[in-house]
């Protein structure tokens, strides 16, 4: 973990409200594990002081990149920054995904919207290929499908408005696959036979909750990355907590340090928002 000024190498629109920002940050790039995040200070915000957390999308040699959606003042300002400008980054932060071992469980990745950003490194570094289930409201919310295919992963798309892939929530094709492997494969080539699947998910909390339920009902392990509101990003402020089971009940644990990735069985979903 380091804190350092980082330079924008490029910052380009992906689809609609989504952008890709590539930063020069060799030390962070080297240390990054799948599922970890960057905490960025966007200096021109000035009267909006706090850093913004973003999953590390890709990490290559000297650079790290993020894939972000413009939803408010920070991300809007970020979208206006150009090559050569400087941000301050803290990273890599948080406890990421367990990279699947060769010959072990088959990874089923489930992502909603910018949740895809947290998944790429996991797919890239997993010796075991699997299926990525990706969902979004509309076609423009389906990100970097081609990149996952290039890694040799099977990609299954669902959109809520049916404008692309299956119509509905991303958990539908996931559930179908688990219950009846291959059945709904939208891809032309035959899906691999799923051996001993393990779920990895990142997206809005309701999606994570649904994934946790599917995992529970099918007795599957699931690692989920929680998208909690953050402030410090390093474990000191206790903003980002979620309820986690303990021997005697539950306690609040920090998404930024104990997470963002948790075992779905640890989370007390009745208490979590």
């Amino acid at each position: 973990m380091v804190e350092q000024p980082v330079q924008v190498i490029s910052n380009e629109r992906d689809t609609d409200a989504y952008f890709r920002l590539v930063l020069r940050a060799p030390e962070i790039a080297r240390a990054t594990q799948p599922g970890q995040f960057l905490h960025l200070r966007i200096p021109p915000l000035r009267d909006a002081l706090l850093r913004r957390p973003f999953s590390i999308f890709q990490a290559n040699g000297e650079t790290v990149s993020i894939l972000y959606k413009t939803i408010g003042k920070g991300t809007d300002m970020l979208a206006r920054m150009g090559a050569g400008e400087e941000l301050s980054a803290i990273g890599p932060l948080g406890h990421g995904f367990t990279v699947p071992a060769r010959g072990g469980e088959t990874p089923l990745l489930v992502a909603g919207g910018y949740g895809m950003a947290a998944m790429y490194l996991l797919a890239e570094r997993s010796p075991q290929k699997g299926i990525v289930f990706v969902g979004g409201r509309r076609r423009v919310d389906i990100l970097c499908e081609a990149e996952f295919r290039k890694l040799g992963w099977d990609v299954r798309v669902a959109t809520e408005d049916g404008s692309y892939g299956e119509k509905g929530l991303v958990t539908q094709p996931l559930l179908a696959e688990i219950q009846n492997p291959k059945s709904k494969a939208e891809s032309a080539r035959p899906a691999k036979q799923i051996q001993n699947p393990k779920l990895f998910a990142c997206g809005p909390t309701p999606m994570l909750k649904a994934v946790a339920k599917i995992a529970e009902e099918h007795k599957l392990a699931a690692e989920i990355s929680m998208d909690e509101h953050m402030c410090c990003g390093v474990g000191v402020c206790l903003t980002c907590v979620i309820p986690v089971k303990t021997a005697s009940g539950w306690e609040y644990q920090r998404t930024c340090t104990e997470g963002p990735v948790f075992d779905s069985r640890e989370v007390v979903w009745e208490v979590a928002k």
Partner: protein
Amino acid sequence: MNLSVSIGKLTLQNPVMVASGTFGYGVEYSRLLDLNQLGAVVVKGIRLGPVRGNPTPRTAEVTSGMLNAIGLQGPGVDGFVEKYWPFLKSLRVPSIINIWGTTVEEYAEVARRFDAVGGVGALELNVSCPNIKEGGAQFGTDPKLLARVVAACRKATTLPLITKLSPNVTSVVPYALAAEAEGSDALSITNSFPAMAIDIETRRPKLANVTGGLTGPCIKPIAIKLVWDARRAVKIPIIGMGGIQSAADAIEFFLAGANAVAIGTANFYEPQTALAVIAGIQDYLQCHNITDIRELTGAVRLS
């Protein structure tokens, strides 16, 4: 150049601390900065037993500041001593323990327990947290209750006692006087301001706790005034805080009457702030041919 200042029998190598609740238990930031360069580390508020804290969302960003309603989540005295004290004890700079309770007796008991721990730098009595139902601010907005808390803790420990005053009073003077009279070695001024923000789309308060405490640069001018008011009333040292993000901000607190300062919210967005403030204070003293930081305290010119 002398940067060292004293809080009761505690001597700090320099007057720049990190404020309670904004620096965890020290260990979290130890990978980002050398804690041994700080004046002191002040840890998150601790009561006797563990505290779960408030539901989320617990913080919200506002113009030039933030709101928080953490609800003093913490491991309690035993949990703290077990999990965090070994690390803090290993530092060369003192740790100041921020403590609270829901009764006068609990405050005193927590103070007694830390007296026995050995090696604690000082205790900071948090009588001003706006985010918990019982305890906290109620003791900080009634001078008689404040006097009782300070007196009870004074009896319970020989450690230096710092009383952290609430800003939410018409005049800070009676509180400063009460704390001094009951044997507090120093004052911390100020804690966060009761405040609120509402999301106009969801129509919900931005904090699950509805209201919270406002901190950050937005409160600095109010905090400066509180320090200035207290300085003219008491002789004991004042630790000034509220929106400090640069050496210039810290120097403003010294001129208003602070003997030391603490960095709070700024740690969240620039973890190196405390070190930058120490360096900036040294530059300022050098540029102005001042050999002792103590010359700055209360040195605002009025004529």
